[in-house]
């Protein structure tokens, strides 16, 4: 059959491979979207029917919310310092120093607080949820739950998602507060900007809506992270290697989703 163009070679082969790849990717995306939709529906129904164990929600609130406070606040504190320092470096001798107050407050509340808290939570909680559920899946614990008549979505997924939705706005609020405080202290020491001047600048460009916007982001990110983590965990196959692979995919999936959602917020809610 020499001289004949095969499926795998030549320009038509490339086109075939390209379109086959696109079709595969589209199927994959559709599959994820469909399964995520079903998961959201299932969790919603479980919540409405009050089938989610309160004890498990409290446990998850402790491990997701309380135990994340320290790392979130450390990250927020550093973000405040960096924002203040870099802002000071860029603005020096160009703008009045009190503008720094606005830059720090607005950057932290609108962007840094929610997004970096979400990134920290992806690493601390999202990866853990995927690895935990993935291990349960490959070790037949999920099957065991079904076999004893329990629904893994009610027992495992819903408490984690609810706990994260409740925790994220609180964590972001704390992160915002700490970020602004460290930003202010940093501005005081490095730029000689007093707290009164800092807050004068902050008030000049302040909109109360910004706080709502920040919490709205927190809420959306707080729902997206555990939903993806649970979804990926319950899809895990292939033993320990599969758990590792799925966790990596899950972290990438969560990070990209947060960044895409973040990019969608300004056109939808700020303009």
């Amino acid at each position, binding site marked *: 059959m020499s001289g004949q163009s095969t499926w795998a070679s030549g320009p038509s082969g490339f086109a075939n491979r390209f379109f086959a790849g696109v079709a595969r990717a589209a199927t994959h995306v559709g599959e994820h979207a469909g399964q995520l939709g079903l998961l959201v529906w299932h969790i919603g129904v479980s919540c409405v029917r009050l089938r989610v164990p309160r004890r498990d929600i409290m446990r998850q609130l402790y491990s997701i919310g309380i135990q994340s406070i320290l790392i979130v606040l450390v990250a927020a504190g550093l973000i405040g310092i960096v924002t203040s320092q870099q802002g000071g470096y860029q603005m020096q001798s160009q703008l009045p120093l009190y503008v720094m107050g606005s830059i720090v407050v607005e950057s932290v509340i609108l962007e840094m607080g929610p997004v970096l808290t979400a990134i920290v939570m992806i690493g601390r909680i999202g990866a853990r949820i995927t690895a935990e559920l993935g291990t349960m899946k490959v070790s037949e*614990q999920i099957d065991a739950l079904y*076999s004893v008549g329990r629904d893994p979505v009610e027992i495992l997924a819903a408490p984690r998602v609810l706990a994260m939705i409740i925790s994220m706005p609180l964590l972001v609020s704390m992160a915002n507060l700490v970020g602004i405080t460290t930003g202010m202290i940093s501005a005081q020491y490095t730029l000689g900007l007093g707290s009164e001047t800092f807050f004068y600048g902050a008030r000049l460009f302040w909109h109360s809506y910004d706080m709502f916007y920040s919490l709205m982001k927190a809420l959306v990110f707080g729902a997206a992270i555990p939903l993806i983590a649970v979804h990926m965990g319950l899809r895990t196959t292939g033993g320990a290697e599969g758990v590792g692979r799925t966790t990596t995919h899950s972290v990438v999936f969560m990070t990209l989703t947060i960044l895409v959602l973040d990019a969608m917020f300004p056109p939808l809610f700020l303009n």
Partner: protein
Amino acid sequence: MSISGNGSGPVIEYRNVFKAFDIPVLSGISLSVEDGEMVALFGPSGTGKSVLLKTTIALVTPDRGDVTVCGESVYFGGGDVIERIRRKVGYVFQYAALFDSLTVFENIEMGIPEDILKRMSAKEVAHRAWEALDLVNLEPQQVLSKLPAELSGGMKKRVGIARAIAGRPEVLLWDEPTTGLDPVNTAAIERLIKQLSDDLRVTSLLVTHDIEGGLEICDRVCMLEGGHLRFCGSPEEFRVSSDPVVRAFVDREAAAVALDTLEIS
């Protein structure tokens, strides 16, 4: 062809079950397990024995065919029927599949159907857990508060069995309960399976690679090979079968011959 036992009526009935993953695994399996009967399912690794077991309580959905448990269709009955069937069936997993984050007591508690559990007092639940552990020859006081990670392999299997029987099932499905155990523990678990089946008068389907053990404790044995039931009969019939694949499972010499001459899938 449906292969059934001689009891009063089938408690589990597989009707022309087909299942394929990348390749066909089950190609039209029909098998009945009668009330109170104990059936062993033998076969080479990867022939779908566990898959068949999982179709009984809808952990795996067949591509075609149906399974009935106590006369109710698993795949045409809807969610409520599946829920009802799962309450009647205790499933013992190959590696116990204990919930890592829960203690032995909480694991056994999970084996009790939710609605029954809600009606039970704490004392009754504790009594039920105690009773289940007692039946599997574990000392309740020593293990109740332990996490699965603190137990040996044999103990985990026993706790897995205790969880399966805590809900007082009518049917017990055993997925290779002796895999990975030493001969002493294997014999102990087999004796336990027989004792539980007799004491609790449950219908049992046992997937195992321990041919001698299975032949000793079961009323009937079946062999799954190449997606089909190759043999179904009494342990005595199995022992004297002239089928080379069956022979390969009965004695080592035949197994060695089969290795060279037969293609056992």
